[in-house]
Structure formats: structure tokens, C-alpha cells
């Protein structure tokens, strides 16, 4: 890797938040990490909240009524976006790990993210259009 002027280190932490002169691979890395944290949070919320099913019909119906609130729908949309970005970028990581598509992985990344954006728009229309 060539030396870049923007190389963060713990002693120079302000640089961590400097978006300039980052390569596309760094953006892929950052996106992958942020979506990973969001999806992990969602996973455990999802597992915990589904215990309402054990509480029987009334408990589960109460939960279903609660999540009709647009705030929860927006949260679900964020989960879909994160899932698309993480899953599609993960496809690239998985393939390149086995030596596939390495020379054109940047183009591959752009195409995958274009699909993620298109998917995000599709679900935004599906979820918010009344």
C-alpha cells in the first residue's frame, strides 16, 4: 500500500473523521463496519422481541400493533439498507477472498452499491408510499 497523507493513528484521532483522500476500499471498509454494528444490534433486538411469540396471541398482536408506527418502519428500512450494503459488499469480499474478480473489484463494488441504492429506493417506495 502506498503511503497516504491521511493515515489515522490513535495519537492523531482527529484524522479518523477526515473524509478526504480516502480510497474507495476504505469507504467499503467503513460502510461494512457501520452496517455490521447496526445489523448486530438489530439481530439481538429481533431475537429478544420475538419472545413475545411465547407470550401468546395477545402479546404478539400488541407487538405487531406497536411496530406499525412510522418510526419503526423507518428503522426497518435502515435495516434493509444496511443488509443490502453489507450483504452485497460481503459478496465481493467472499469472492475476492478466493481469488475471484480481484482485478476489477472496484468496478464490482460500484455496481453492487448501485444495486443497493436501487434496492433502497424500491423499498422506500414500497414501505412509505400510502
Amino acid at each position, binding site marked *: *500500500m502506498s503511503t497516504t497523507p491521511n493515515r489515522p493513528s490513535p495519537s492523531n484521532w482527529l484524522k479518523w473523521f477526515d473524509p478526504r483522500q480516502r480510497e474507495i476500499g476504505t469507504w467499503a471498509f467503513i460502510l461494512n463496519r457501520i452496517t*455490521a454494528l447496526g445489523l*448486530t444490534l438489530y*439481530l439481538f433486538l429481533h431475537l429478544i422481541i420475538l419472545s413475545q411469540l411465547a407470550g401468546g396471541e395477545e402479546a404478539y398482536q400488541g407487538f405487531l400493533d406497536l411496530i406499525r408506527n412510522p418510526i419503526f418502519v423507518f428503522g426497518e428500512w435502515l435495516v434493509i439498507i444496511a443488509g443490502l450494503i453489507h450483504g452485497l459488499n460481503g459478496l465481493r*469480499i467472499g469472492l*475476492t*477472498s478466493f481469488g475471484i474478480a480481484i482485478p476489477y473489484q472496484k468496478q464490482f463494488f460500484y455496481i453492487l452499491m448501485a444495486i443497493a441504492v436501487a434496492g433502497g429506493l424500491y423499498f422506500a417506495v414500497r414501505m412509505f408510499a400510502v
Partner: protein
Amino acid sequence: MLETVSTPKKGETTWLWLLKIITGALIFIILGIHFVVNHTLGTVEGGLLSYQDVVAYYQNPIIPIMEIAFLIFVVSHSLIGLRSIFLDLNPSPRALSTVNWLFSAVGIVSVVYGIWLVMTIVSRGS
């Protein structure tokens, strides 16, 4: 070249790295099924959005098997992934060891709880 592909991190064994990739691929497939099925089946518009529909769905023996497998893949993937984020912080061996124990415990508890929940839902149909 080394920097351009995903390789095991320092402190991450090759097996964990491989497991993360394999579970990632499996999640890609099963999450697709989970998502489409849960949003199209059932008697309510929008998917399995009633207690009876969920219980009925779980009466097909393939479903509890698929969901438990999915749970194991997704919990493993998320905890191995969280661990690799933690490794980026250059943890001391002691901190890493604590995280190893903590994440293993969280993983086991989650899977045991998930199996209990699936079996509870299955039993409501009989």
C-alpha cells in the same frame, strides 16, 4: 496485493476467518428465503403478521430446521465479525480473552434461547 483482499487478521485464526466467509454466504441465501417467505405468506397483507400464521408456518418441519440453522449461522457470523472489529482496537491479550469468553457465552445463550423459542412455537400448533 496482500492489502487488497480479505485475509485473516492478527489474532483471528484461519478457521474463524473461513467460518465468517462460509456463514456469510449461507446467510446471503437463507436471509433471502427468510425475507421473501416472511413477507409473502400468511392470511394478513404484508406477510406472517399474526400469531396463528406464525404457528401454522412452523408446523412444516423444514421451517424449524431452517430457522435454527439460520440462527446459528447469523449469530456466529455477527459475533466473529464483532470480534474482528474488536481486534482492530489492538486489545491486550487479557481483554481479548475476556471478549472470547463473553462472545462465546452470548452465542451459546442466543442459540439455546432461539431453539427454545422455535420449539415453543412448534408445540403451540399441536
